[in-house]
């Protein structure tokens, strides 16, 4: 095909691309640049990185493969996509790790230069995988990415290592042509990033263009595709992942409560980014404290809360376990505290970089004694902002610790987010006791919500003692009186239950009663909602609820659950929410669909399960 003949362009509704290579190949950057370009282009999109726990596993091995998946569309996009339409595999290991995630008939772009005997061995192939008959199911594009990158840069005075580092941009250029994307945004990114290094700037631009031109003239690519912009609500947007959204939601809560934000935390995957993000926000007066361990993280936060700050600690599974004793201290001292738990695969070190929802019962019950607190769960990367804000609002206004559950999928996944304005967020009014107030008693309940007053050190006249020993009702003096313990245990439980007055009702999608109610919570929203939407489109009848407020449940929960013949709870554990619902709503039965592979659900598997139930199989 001659260069001057324009290839046909085909319209597509939605596309999923997976970029994969060695963990040092720059696949996360490649994916991010493609996502940003698509977002600017006006598509809906969702992304998810899939990276190994090892920082640099041996080169060329399957264990060292790093991937980045992006799903973009003209139509609604709620997940990063189950299976890819296009796979970019920079080496045989990337092909081996990802072929199973490519749709039959999909395009696989490989860097043929890396398909050598040595690399086959490293990847664990006995011979050239491209000769496997199964490859006939795909449209494999064998692009000499490494050699063409070298060729295009031969006139630049650049060492071979730097040359090879830009080969990911060749692959990106190819994909840009394939999906008819403009290159200006990426070029602008280079100009900004390599301001001080004009040779590298030139190299990246050149390689990107070379990839684009190669795809344009390659006989193997018969057509390009176009994914039209979506009809998106007007506003200012940005891409955001769950961890940054969580950090920013906490900042918003600090501003609305007029308190200083204090974060005491210890680095742990996949929660570390929240600590890192807030550490850069000294400009907003945040005090971040990288403690010597998880326990010091939460204890310093409890100290800061005692002294009147909006106090937060962030962690993931093993860290939540370490914090349990101190969490009980926050419960009995009735101090506001936000505990963010970014769930990952467990038990123990488990699957540190993978997602799971198996900390639910630990969040609700995982402490000694009767130790109630509020449990919330965010459900999309961007609504981590909202639920972090709400977690802080509830903690401060109800004088209680709140556990906010997110997970590895939300934390690292990103999506475009319509930026809110601070004036539209509600004020937060903690029950601070000001000097001159009358008759302060540390454990006197101020209102029907059973909230106690917060007199912070420095406030004259209200000096008092808090601590882990049981408190006398009202006065807060140490008390071993048996009847008083009962009173205080009841009061703490009632105080947490009273939060129900400040949370919205569950929203039901679909009919308000019927045959089947689909139930989810937390980070599985995108997949469950997509399965629900597609099944409805196919004519199936079902309704859907998704829990963000878990303890306490919204007021209308029982009424909704009772309006359906069957209830199906889908979650990434062995059935913790299903069991919790059985206990809370005695007599109701719940079907379960569970998965614990460190991976999100696929929409396809969810639809299959739901159809089975609807068709009575």
């Amino acid at each position, binding site marked *: 095909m001659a260069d001057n003949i324009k290839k046909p362009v085909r319209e597509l509704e939605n596309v999923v691309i997976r970029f994969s290579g060695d963990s040092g190949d720059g696949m996360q950057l490649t994916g991010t640049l493609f996502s940003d370009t698509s977002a600017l282009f006006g598509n809906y999109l969702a992304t998810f990185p899939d990276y190994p726990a090892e920082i640099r596993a041996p080169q060329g091995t399957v264990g060292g493969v790093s991937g980045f998946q992006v799903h973009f569309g003209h139509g609604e996009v709620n997940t990063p996509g189950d299976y890819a339409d296009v796979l970019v595999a920079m080496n045989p290991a990337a092909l081996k790790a990802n072929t199973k995630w490519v749709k039959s008939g999909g395009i696989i772009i490989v860097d043929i230069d890396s398909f050598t005997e040595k690399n086959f061995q490293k990847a664990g192939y006995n011979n050239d995988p491209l000769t496997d008959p199964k490859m006939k199911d795909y449209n494999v594009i064998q692009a000499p990415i490494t050699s063409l990158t070298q060729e295009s840069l031969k006139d630049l005075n650049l060492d071979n290592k730097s040359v090879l580092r830009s080969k990911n941009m060749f692959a990106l250029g190819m994909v840009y042509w394939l999906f008819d994307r403009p290159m200006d945004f990426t070029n602008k990114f280079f100009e900004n990033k390599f301001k001080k290094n004009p040779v590298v700037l030139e190299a990246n631009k050149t390689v990107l263009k070379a990839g684009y031109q190669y795809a344009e003239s390659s006989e193997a690519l018969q057509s390009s595709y176009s994914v039209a912009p979506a009809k998106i609500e007007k506003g200012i947007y940005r891409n955001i992942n769950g961890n940054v959204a969580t950090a920013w939601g906490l900042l918003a809560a600090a501003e609305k409560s007029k308190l200083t934000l204090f974060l005491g935390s210890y680095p742990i995957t996949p929660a570390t980014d929240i600590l890192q993000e807030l550490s850069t*926000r000294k400009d907003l007066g945040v005090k971040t404290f990288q403690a010597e361990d998880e326990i010091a993280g939460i204890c310093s936060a409890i100290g800061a809360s005692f002294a009147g700050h909006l106090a937060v600690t962030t962690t993931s599974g093993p860290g939540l376990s370490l914090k349990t004793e101190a969490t009980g201290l926050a419960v009995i001292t009735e101090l506001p505290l936000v505990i963010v738990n970014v769930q990952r695969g467990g038990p123990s070190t488990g699957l540190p970089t993978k997602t799971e929802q198996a900390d639910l019962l630990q969040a609700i019950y995982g402490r000694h004694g009767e130790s109630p607190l509020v449990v919330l769960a965010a459900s999309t990367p961007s609504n981590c902002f909202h639920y972090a804000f709400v977690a802080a609002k509830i903690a401060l206004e109800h004088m209680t610790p709140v556990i906010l559950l997110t997970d590895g999928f939300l934390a690292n996944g990103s999506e475009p987010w319509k930026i809110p304005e601070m004036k539209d967020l509600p004020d937060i009014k903690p029950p601070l006791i000001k000097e001159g107030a009358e008759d302060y008693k540390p454990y006197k309940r101020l209102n029907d919500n059973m909230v106690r007053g917060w007199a912070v050190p420095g406030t004259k006249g209200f000096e008092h003692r808090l601590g882990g020993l049981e408190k006398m009702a009202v006065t807060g003096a140490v008390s071993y009186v048996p009847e008083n313990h009962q009173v205080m245990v009841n009061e703490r439980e009632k105080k947490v239950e009273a939060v129900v007055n400040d949370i919205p009702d569950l929203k039901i999608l679909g009919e308000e009663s019927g045959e089947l109610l689909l139930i989810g919570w937390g980070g599985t929203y995108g997949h469950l909602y997509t399965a629900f939407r597609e099944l409805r489109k196919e004519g199936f009848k079902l309704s859907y609820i998704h829990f963000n407020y878990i303890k306490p449940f919204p007021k209308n929960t029982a009424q909704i659950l009772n309006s359906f013949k069957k209830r199906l709870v889908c979650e990434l554990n062995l059935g913790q929410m299903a069991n919790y619902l059985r206990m809370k709503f005695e007599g109701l039965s719940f079907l379960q669909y569970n998965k614990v592979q460190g991976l999100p659900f696929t929409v396809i598997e969810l639809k299959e399960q739901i159809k089975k139930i609807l068709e009575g199989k």
Partner: protein
Amino acid sequence: MNEQVTLQPKDFKSDQEVRWCAGCGDHAVLSAVHRAMAQTGIPREKIALISGIGCSSRFPYYMNTYAFHGIHGRAPAIASGVKMANPDLSVWVITGDGDALAIGGNHFIHVIRRNINLNIILLNNQIYGLTKGQYSPTSFQGQISKTSPFGTIEPPFHPGELTLGAQGNFFARSLDYNVKLTTDILVEAAKFQGTSVVEVLQNCVIYNDNAYGYINDKAYKEDRQLILEQGKPMIFGKNNDKGIIMEDMQLKVVKLGENGITEKNILIHDAKAQSPLIHWMLAKMNFPEFPVAFGVIRAVEEDTYSLKMKRQIEYIQKNSKIKNVDDLLRSGNTWEV
């Protein structure tokens, strides 16, 4: 902390009944704390006292200030949070040998390393009292206790050594019954900018009675205690005739008047010396070879954690374009639809 008030020791007593055993050394320390706080002139509402778990950690309930009874070993971490949140408070930590050096060892060394401006009072009775008599990390090797019926087989920690090893800037030692000395030291600790560790050798009358009898014995105490004073020669003894000299890079006890030794040969105490070398030797001195050193052994001021945190935040705030959350949300890559 500029505000000064005139208060009496009794103003710091709470209305709670003190529940330590009769004869427990903690009573004397509580009295010293009440006196020291009155002397500092810091108003009650500006004082926060944080404890962990153990007999000594019941302290908060006997104070008429803000106070917090935490969980085992974690008082330094809780207190760090209080001080970071409000550097204007005078923050005290009450802890014991088990609380600070066993379960809370990690927090103890890190709070010192960070130089957070706390006053840590470590009541060292070389035993677990609240759990009724098990050996502690400061019990001497061979000590008989309920969990070491045949004697411990582990060497003890010395709080002074740990403090200096963690780059501590203030270490002092007192004895429970010497309320005057404890009070004076606590006033110094309160004034000191940085983490101050005050070890109080304290008698557990029930489970480890007379553990410090060799130091307290009325007949010998002047010979077995060296009370250090800044700028003064290290002279001790019933007749003020003994002193400490440095010889071959080692401390040595000498007798004045013997072998031509005069006061001029005796080491002058300098708690403000940058090098912790002599401080470390003094903290380590023990019976029977040496007298045990009391008083402020080291006091070298450096910028505190809170001060550095404040400076950093102010600097970044002055130089950042982001002034509020709206600015932040609109920073970086955004696009309009």
